[in-house]
């Protein structure tokens, strides 16, 4: 190979492999994010346009109780949705991974994605409303009717319903690669079933658990469609606030500040979570 050509070849290789994806990320992720960051320091003009002066006033506004409450509620939805997904999704992933027809079960798991997201959320609305199927069923047993919609419960239910598959898939992937002999080794060394699971199986699925929680927590924190439809104004999440600023209120600057704040919070949470993972601390706790 020609010595002089080597750096050019290397550059060429990098451009060909990383180039298209990199360009995409640059144009559609990095630049827009920077624009949002810049906008968050600007002010809403008389016609809803972005204008001066520059400053931190949008971030100061964030600290008002109404916004903090929306943020707290988003956090609650994010955390609860992640926990509930873990409780239901973790065993489900094991069941699917060990089932002889796991290809079929995986297909069923992903089946809802073939239907439009909005339609699925509306379906919950129909099910949960006062004259809906759920109340009718409860009524048959002489219970209810309850006001299931609009409510925080309805929002949480539909959020978990929407994002559960995102939790199951990565856990499923780690369960499939599981070394079951470690479980036997733990039994052999005197661990009863629960502790054997805790020490021999659970640590092997940490990567899947981590990926699953991230994939549920992030979108659940930012969702606004579910809260809009099933909360019907009673449940206001940070996503709803952002949507309002960019739509109804036309205060792009404040909307940008809300977005940056949400992004910063999620990144920090991820960083702390990843640190906890890396220290292998979980295993020693029990």
């Amino acid at each position, binding site marked *: 190979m020609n010595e002089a050509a080597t750096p050019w070849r290397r550059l060429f290789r990098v451009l060909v492999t990383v180039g298209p994806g990199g360009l995409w990320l640059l144009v559609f992720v990095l630049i827009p994010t920077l624009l949002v960051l810049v906008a968050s320091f600007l002010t809403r003009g008389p016609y809803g346009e972005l204008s001066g002066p520059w400053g931190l006033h949008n971030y100061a506004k964030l600290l008002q109780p109404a916004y903090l409450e929306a943020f707290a509620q988003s956090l609650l939805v994010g955390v609860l949705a992640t926990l509930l997904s873990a409780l239901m999704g973790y065993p489900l992933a094991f069941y699917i991974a060990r089932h002889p027809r796991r290809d079929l079960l995986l297909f069923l798991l992903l089946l809802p994605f073939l239907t439009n997201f909005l339609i699925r959320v509306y379906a919950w609305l129909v099910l949960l409303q006062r004259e809906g199927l759920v109340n009718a069923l409860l009524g048959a047993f002489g219970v209810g009717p309850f006001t299931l919609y609009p409510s925080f419960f309805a929002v949480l239910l539909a959020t978990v319903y929407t994002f559960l598959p995102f939790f199951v898939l990565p856990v499923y992937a780690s369960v499939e690669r599981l070394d079951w002999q470690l479980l036997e*080794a*733990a*039994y052999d*060394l*005197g*661990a009863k079933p629960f502790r*054997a699971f805790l*020490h021999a199986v659970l640590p092997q699925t940490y990567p899947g658990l981590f990926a699953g929680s991230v994939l549920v927590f992030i979108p659940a924190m930012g969702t606004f469609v579910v809260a809009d439809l099933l909360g019907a104004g009673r449940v206001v999440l940070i996503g709803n606030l952002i949507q309002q600023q960019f739509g109804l209120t036309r205060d792009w600057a404040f909307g940008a500040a809300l977005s940056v704040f949400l992004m910063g919070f999620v990144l920090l949470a991820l960083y702390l979570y990843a640190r906890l993972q890396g220290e292998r601390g979980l*295993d020693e706790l029990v």
Partner: protein
Amino acid sequence: MAGEALVRLVGVSKRFGEVVALDGVDLEVQKGEFFSLLGPSGCGKTTLLRLLAGFDTPDAGRIEIAGRDVSRVPPYDRPVNTVFQNYALFPHMTVEGNVAFGLRMKGLSPGEVRKKVAWALELVDLVGLERRYPRELSGGQRQRVALARALVLEPQVLLLDEPLSALDLKLRQELRVELMQLQRRLGTTFIFVTHDQEEALVMSDRIAVMRSGRIEQVGLPDEVYERPKNRFVADFLGRSNLLPAKPHPLGAETPLGPLRLKEPLVREALLVIRPEKIRLYPLGNGAPARDNLVRAKVEEIVYTGAENQYYLRSGEVRLLAYTLNQDLQEPGAEEFSYGEEVLCYLPPENLVVLHE
């Protein structure tokens, strides 16, 4: 059998679907024995080990350890520990964590745990590697961790599932000796599964040769090797020359002609002679004028370093004979060349009679 049986299997059977893995196995292992289960893959030896460990339960029969029926006892309540074929070390724990695991499960105090872990690591010569993770160890070191992790619990029986098969030859031979020394030092009963006949012969106090879910023969290594009970055992342990034989006044009538035996045959049988028991002499010179001399032609010579392997043919019969590569003063240690005619001496005391 004299002595105290620590492990007793009575009529143990196990099937997986259509496959019969164990078919009514009876077996007794004495306390302090180094006992090997030897057989080809699929013979049921690993199934037997898994039943002893408690990972599977027998479909029929009884397993007793130290006089207690443990057939249905879960693995965590049995006084046995296992060294797995691929070690099954916990990848997220250090060497120390792996060895301490069983002790922690027993609820020992941190001080006791530390003391015992130190003892076990000393035992297998791993001091200084406490903080390493399994992925940072060589195959041989992982093997020692697996050994320490099991032995630190002071089991009544240590089960070893082909623990040396993943290592290269030289390391395997070293670890064989270490394992034997360890066993003698601790006096723990070892039950060792292997498909390697040399390993079994070298290491064991007694060997059980298995085939198709049954035990074909149990005995001391030299018993099993020198006095195989049937054709399978004769064939599986080392190489053998097999000769069909009929009764004859001298001893037996065989395709090589009449041969003298220690006792004449009374019915048809199979004669077995090991290749190293056949002695070779040059034609006309030095051959003792005795019976059991067979003239044969050298068809192939395989030089293995320590010995020469001669592939011989006498009429329609092929024979295999080994001679040691030692000083040529010894009778029967001559070297022969391709195509040469030699005299083979088949000593009557080394012709084993099999009735099948």
